């Protein structure tokens, strides 16, 4: 079967921080990749540093950043139209059916999403759960493989070693380019690596270390 990858994350920038190297690797192999982006990150608190966005201009700014990132990562984009921070309050079954409809059309061989309960942000957990349910609703013969990404501080203690560890050192520069296309968000998120007692070069090393590997667990369906 022709390979095809669908990435399902809720926010513009989840794809760049979480899976840019993996996506770039697939694209280099000629595998089509589509990003189903759940929301526009309307409720993000990062407004750029110094701030250039506000609560009302942020959605359109993030949409433009998302289009730019998808261009850099050379993947198709479908925006799902949910609202930031509200996914867990939607009917998860309905979200799953919505996703299934798209998956039935795209017929991916692999779905990449967040690992429910181990992905920190409630939107990550909710959309990850919906994506896993969407695949479960498919006939077993048509089901794509699912790679679930965990983020929580404790995930390795609980889930063990990830099944897939992609060393993306070769794609690091391009991954950073994708991350920085999210201009309103990048400085704020990467700023977490800055500490007063660290030299700038150490901060760069930390970022490189943290973002040079992308981890996933292969989801095991029991039926």
């Amino acid at each position, binding site marked *: 079967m022709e390979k095809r990858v669908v990435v399902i994350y809720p926010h513009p920038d989840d794809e760049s921080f979480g899976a840019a190297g993996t996506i770039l690797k697939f694209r280099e192999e000629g595998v089509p990749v589509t990003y189903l982006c759940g929301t526009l990150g309307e409720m993000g*608190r990062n407004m750029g540093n110094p701030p250039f966005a*506000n609560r*009302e201009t942020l959605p359109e700014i993030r949409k433009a950043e998302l289009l730019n990132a998808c261009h850099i990562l050379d993947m198709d984009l479908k925006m799902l139209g949910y609202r930031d921070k509200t996914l867990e309050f939607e009917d998860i079954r309905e979200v799953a059916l919505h996703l299934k409809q798209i998956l039935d059309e795209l017929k991916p061989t692999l779905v990449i999403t967040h690992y429910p309960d181990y992905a920190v942000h409630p939107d990550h957990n909710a959309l990850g759960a919906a994506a896993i349910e969407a695949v479960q609703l498919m006939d077993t013969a048509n089901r794509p493989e699912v790679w679930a990404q965990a983020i929580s501080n404790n995930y390795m203690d609980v889930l063990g070693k990830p099944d897939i560890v992609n060393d993306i050192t070769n794609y690091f520069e391009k991954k950073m380019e994708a991350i920085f296309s999210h201009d309103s968000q990048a400085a704020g998120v990467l700023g977490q690596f800055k500490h007063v007692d660290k030299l700038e070069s150490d901060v760069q090393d930390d970022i490189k270390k943290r973002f040079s590997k992308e981890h996933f667990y292969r989801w095991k369906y029991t039926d």
Partner: protein
Amino acid sequence: MKPIEIDNVQHILNQYTNKKVYVHLETTNGAYANHINKAAYNVGVYMRNAQVTFEQAKIVGDGSVYRAGLKMEMGWIYAEGLTDWTMHEDTKLLLAGHDREGRLMVSLQISETPFNY
């Protein structure tokens, strides 16, 4: 947004009194507060497009950080930590408080028409 100019903001607040207006009220410390710092709590609230009428509105502060209070027939709307303001699409008043890294911590927004999204 730009630093709050109290006279301008007070003048605009007055224009919304005794009208049906839409309010966006929010505070947040981000969805990753506890992930980044175990000692921190994730706390946030937002209410979008609540339709209210207030009869009196006032902004008070020390020249850099401000509080706003809107007095309604039965109740109050209150925001603290406001630092910046702008008019969005000429008709929507946006007030927000940002931290040193430019992250939004609190916002109070008022409009005669609903906010998008």
